[in-house]
C-alpha cells in the first residue's frame, strides 16, 4: 500500500481513528448490553487493524485473539448468564408476591 498514494494511507488512518472513537463512544453509551458487547468486538477488530498500520503485527495478533476473540466470547456468555439470573430473580419475586397474596386471603 505504501508508495501508491500518500493521501490514501493518511485518509485511511484518519477514517480508522474517527471510527474507533465513534465506536468506543457508542459502545459506552449503548443502553442494551448486547449492543455494547458487539460494538466492543468491532472496536477490537479496528484496534487490531490500527496495530498493523503502526507496524506491530505481534500486538495486532494479540489484540485480535485476546481482546476481540476470547474477551468477546467471555462477554457474550457472561451477558447470557446475567440475563438468565435476572429472569430467575423476577420469577422468584413473582412467586413471593403470589405467596403473600394467598396468606392475606386466609
Amino acid at each position, binding site marked *: 500500500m505504501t508508495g501508491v498514494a500518500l493521501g490514501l494511507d493518511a485518509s485511511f488512518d484518519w477514517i480508522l481513528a474517527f471510527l474507533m472513537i465513534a465506536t468506543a463512544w457508542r459502545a459506552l453509551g449503548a443502553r442494551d448490553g448486547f449492543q455494547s458487547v458487539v460494538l466492543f468486538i468491532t472496536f477490537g477488530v479496528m484496534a487490531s487493524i490500527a496495530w498493523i498500520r503502526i507496524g506491530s*503485527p*505481534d500486538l495486532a*495478533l*494479540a489484540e485480535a*485473539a*485476546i481482546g476481540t*476473540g*476470547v474477551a468477546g*466470547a*467471555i462477554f457474550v*456468555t*457472561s451477558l*447470557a*448468564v446475567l440475563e*438468565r*439470573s435476572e429472569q*430467575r*430473580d423476577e420469577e422468584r419475586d413473582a412467586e413471593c408476591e403470589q405467596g403473600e397474596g394467598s396468606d392475606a386471603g386466609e
Partner: protein
Amino acid sequence: MPESRRRPARALSAIGCATLGASLGWMALSRSARESDLARSVSEASTARGLEHEVTAVLLDFRGYDTLLETAVLLAALTGVWAVHGTLEASRGESPRARGTRETIDDPSGLVDGLLRVLAPILLVASAYLGWAGSHAPGGAFQAGTVLASLLILLTLAHPIDPGAALSRGARALSSAGLWVFISVALGTGLGGRAFLDYPTAWMKPLVWLIESAVAISVATILAIFFVEASRSGGERS
C-alpha cells in the same frame, strides 16, 4: 446517581482523557521519539543474542523478568476468579444449588460439532506455527496460547464439561506449567553462575522455545477456564 450529579465527574474524566491523549500524541509525534536509535540497537542486540525477532528478544531476553511476572499475573487472575466465583464449593458439591447451571447451546443440527471438525486441525496447526514462528517472525507464546484457547472454548461449547473439571489436578498443573518452567529456567541460569534469567547465548533458542511452549499451554488453559467460569451461572448467589 441522578444525571445532574454525574456531570462534573464526566467533565473531569473527559478533561483527564483529553490531556492524556494530547500528551501521548505529542510524545509520539515529537522528534526525539522518531530520531531515537533504540529500534536499531535493539535489533542489533537481538541478532547478537541469536534471536531474529526483536519482540521476542525484548519479551523473553532483555525484559524476561517482566514476562515472568506477566505469567504470574495470569495465574493470580485465575485464582481470583476461582475465589470470587466459589468454584471450590461448587466442585465439592456441598450444596446442589452451589453447582449452578452451565450455559449450553442447543446444537441439534450439529453445527458447532461440524465446525469443530473443520477448525480443530487448522487451529492446532496455526497455534503451533505461531509459537514456533515467535523466534523469527511475529507470533509467540501469548498469541499461540490464545489460538489454542479458542480451540478449547469451541470444544467446551460442543461438549460441555463440568465446572469442577476446571479445578482438576491436570487443569491446575497445566495452568501453572508456564510459570514453573519459567522459574526453573530462571533459577537454572542462577545456579549456572549467571544472573537471574540471563540465558547463555548458545542455549538461547531451546530455552526460549521451552519457555514459550509452556507459557502458551498455560495461557490456553487459563483463558479456557475463564470462559468456562464465565458461562457458569453464580449458583448460590441467585
